[in-house]
């Protein structure tokens, strides 16, 4: 009978590049930058890594297919390297592969790395796939962008919970203001200036009702983790082990898009994945027990409804909790303490691992000006796709044995 992942995997090293418009670096250079920090943190040699997982999403403008970009950039010595992709949840997907490999006993030490080089497209926003995104979907899907797809949550949420447009706009505006305030304290973030609610509300409209400041930018970056079993970690002399408490995914069955129940206002997947993650981690009351979280704030509205899907805000109340500062740095459950996708941008393959990176630093007391007081459990929520069809990936990490 399976017993889940809790306390079977320890993270012994992590690395993360500065995210941003890295004009001077290609994916090959970003991989080395993150890996260099990570292997130093782990205190092992490259030859100790027995298998690796590469997460990267947009083939056409990035590194192309296969896992060879990782094995060749890092000069990995003919070890197994697997390429994984699950839209924007790719980073967590790479982490899962490495974790299950060591938990299974198949390997001792594994590497999970995500990278994305998006700033070679020549324009802002995610690249448009056109007919190369799917030969059937090309024939009938609207030419939807990410902002437009997620913006739809707003019309549905307002209709369902009778929230006035102005109130919702201020609530989602506050989500971004809060994240920017956190990004100020993060030298690795792309955007490090604070913004005011007035600025957010006055920003040009991108996809109604999301304005410029409700949307995260597109950027370049890489992040990685080296994992092993707690036993091996102790043998390597590691103290204060950080371990994985839960790793859960939930993917749409097609019901949101074709069945008659979902109302368009939340993520069915996040609701289900988080329930399983809390059970796996032994968390009974997330509102009290989750010390901090990084959620997929590609858009402010996504973060807002996610507060409810993670069972921390009550249904229909997230907008009030946001305005109350519940998720601010000095709130009950600080969210995006590192600045989030909002300040880092979203190099797709890297984001999930960047989220885990911040939770890891916080748990080890290494988060500098962003340090929270004595955090216990950190949750990451990494979402790929659209509200109407998506992959929700949740990880919970904490101190080993806690």
């Amino acid at each position, binding site marked *: 009978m399976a017993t889940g992942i809790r306390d079977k995997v320890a993270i012994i090293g992590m690395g993360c590049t500065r995210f941003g418009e890295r004009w001077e670096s290609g994916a090959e250079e970003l991989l080395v930058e993150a890996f260099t920090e990570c292997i130093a943190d782990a205190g092992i040699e490259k030859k100790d890594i027995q298998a690796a997982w590469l997460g990267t999403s947009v083939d056409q403008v990035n590194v192309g297919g296969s896992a060879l970009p990782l094995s060749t950039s890092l000069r990995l010595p003919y070890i197994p390297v697997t390429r994984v992709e699950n839209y924007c949840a790719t980073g967590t997907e790479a982490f899962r592969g490495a974790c299950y490999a060591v938990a299974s006993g198949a390997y001792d030490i594994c590497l999970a790395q995500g990278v994305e080089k998006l700033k070679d497209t020549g324009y802002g*926003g995610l690249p448009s796939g056109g007919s190369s995104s799917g030969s059937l979907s090309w*024939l009938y899907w*609207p030419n*939807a962008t990410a902002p*437009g797809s997620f913006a739809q949550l707003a019309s549905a949420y307002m209709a369902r919970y009778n929230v006035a447009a102005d109130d919702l706009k201020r609530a989602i505006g506050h989500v971004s203001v809060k994240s920017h305030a956190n990004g100020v304290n993060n030298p690795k973030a792309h955007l490090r200036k604070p913004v005011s609610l007035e600025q957010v509300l006055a920003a040009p409209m991108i996809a109604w009702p999301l304005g410029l400041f409700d949307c995260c930018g597109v950027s370049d970056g890489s992040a990685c983790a080296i994992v092993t079993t707690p036993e091996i970690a102790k043998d390597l002399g590691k103290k204060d082990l950080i371990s994985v408490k839960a790793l859960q995914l939930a993917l749409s069955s097609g019901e949101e898009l074709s*069945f008659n129940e979902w109302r*368009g206002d939340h993520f069915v997947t996040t609701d289900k994945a988080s329930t399983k993650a809390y059970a796996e981690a032994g968390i009974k009351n997330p509102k009290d027990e989750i010390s901090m979280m990084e959620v997929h704030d590609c858009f402010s509205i996504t973060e807002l409804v996610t507060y409810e899907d993670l069972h921390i805000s009550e249904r229909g109340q997230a907008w009030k909790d946001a305005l109350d500062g519940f998720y601010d740095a000095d709130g009950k459950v600080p969210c995006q303490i590192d600045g989030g996708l909002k300040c880092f941008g979203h190099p797709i393959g890297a984001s999930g691992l960047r989220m885990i990176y911040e939770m890891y630093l916080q748990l080890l007391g290494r988060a500098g000006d962003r340090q929270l007081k004595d955090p216990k459990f950190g949750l990451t929520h990494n979402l790929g796709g659209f509200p109407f069809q998506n992959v929700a990936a949740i990880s919970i990490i904490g101190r080993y044995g806690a």
Partner: protein
Amino acid sequence: MIGITSFGAYIPRLRLNRGAIFMNMGWYNPSIIAVAQGERSCCNWDEDSLTMAVAASRECLTGLDRNQIDAVYLASTTMPFSDRQNAGILATTLNLREDIQTSDFTSSQKAGTDALLTALDVVTGGDKKTILVAAADTRTAKPASSYEMWYGDGSAAMTVGDQDVIAEFKGGYSVAIDFVDHYRGTQNKFDYTWEERWVRDEGYSKIIPQAVGGLFQKLGIGMDQVDKLIFPCYFKAEHRKIAKKLGADADKLVDNMHEVCGEMGTAHPLMMLASTLEKAEPGQRIVVAGFGQGSDALYFEVTENIKKLPARLGVAGHLAKKKTLDNYPKFLSFRDMAEKEMGIRSEAPTQTALTVLWRKRKMILGLVGGKCRDCGTPQFPKMDICVNPNCNHVKSLDDYEFADEPAKVMTYTGDMLAFSIDPPAIYGMIEFDGGGRFLADFTDCELDDVSVGKPVSMSFRRRYTDKARGFTGYFWKAIPQAEASA
């Protein structure tokens, strides 16, 4: 008795104010003021002759059994394909039987009346009982030409058969005369026109009377046995003169519709005929003639069945449903006549896998989804496993048509980032009252027209044009309705 059994019309919502054309191009050609009255209909950027023909045909088929249709004839000089049966695409959108004949009538402005006359003759022949005839055109003229003022976009459709005939066909007469008032070579985008005086004096003024006169002689009738006379002619004065010469006074001559929509190419004689039928009384006798390198003239008598025809928007309804466009550059842009910065985002690949289009032709062109035999859930698209989580049976779905099902807006947005010919791109989830839903583009609306819960109706539209490969892709879009109605 054989004749017309139903009719339908479609006039695009947008009406370009002719004054706007003059405002923008009058500096170049002041003479166009002479024909700058009223408005001309123009396609939205996502419409073309085929999409308009689908709309007119759907209206025509109100209350009729589509399985009875034995042939589809589509007339147009502006078909999207020169070699791919356009009438066949039309048949697929309507989910007609496979064992039918489809035929495109083209290359002349009289193709509409050609198609109608041929359909009547074929039904008379006995092998086919019901034929759908549709005519549509979206003719493009050079800016600052009189023709830009005269042309409108639109479509009209009729069914022809021997059951419940509303206008009995009494006979037809054709003349074929290679009078080249204008032409368009296969490689050309625009028509080439000759001197208007010659076209009026030697063309319309001689050929229309020749055809109508020939019809009268063949049937042994005169203008006193005609209540309504229909024929196209841009030149209003000439239109009246020809009618007068034929012995028809002002009440008999059906207006050429210049001020309200413009002349719609092959569709025009049928549009004027539809407009006449929707006001007709039983017993009225109608002559309708086309014009284009000759003429076909047809004679009908309206029957009592005209009173029993189920309601439809018709010409009058479509004329009323309009939005005036004062923006001439927008008109040019919608017709792809104004090069503009589309950004690198618009460079995304646009290839159509014809194998996928074949496999999914009912889904894409016919908006056919599935309904589970076991749990009754309608769903789009139709897949091998039922989407109902309490069912999930394998291969349990039968075909289910969504195009005529009422639906409502569930979510929406106006996207300024997505590449669009008419930003913002408006799209969202729609859910059908009877079950089923999908993510749809909204069209014929502004963002303020859309709200959660608003009823929508489905419309067949152009989705994309792959210029490099010369392909046009189509799918269905949702139009927000002003009120909940059929």
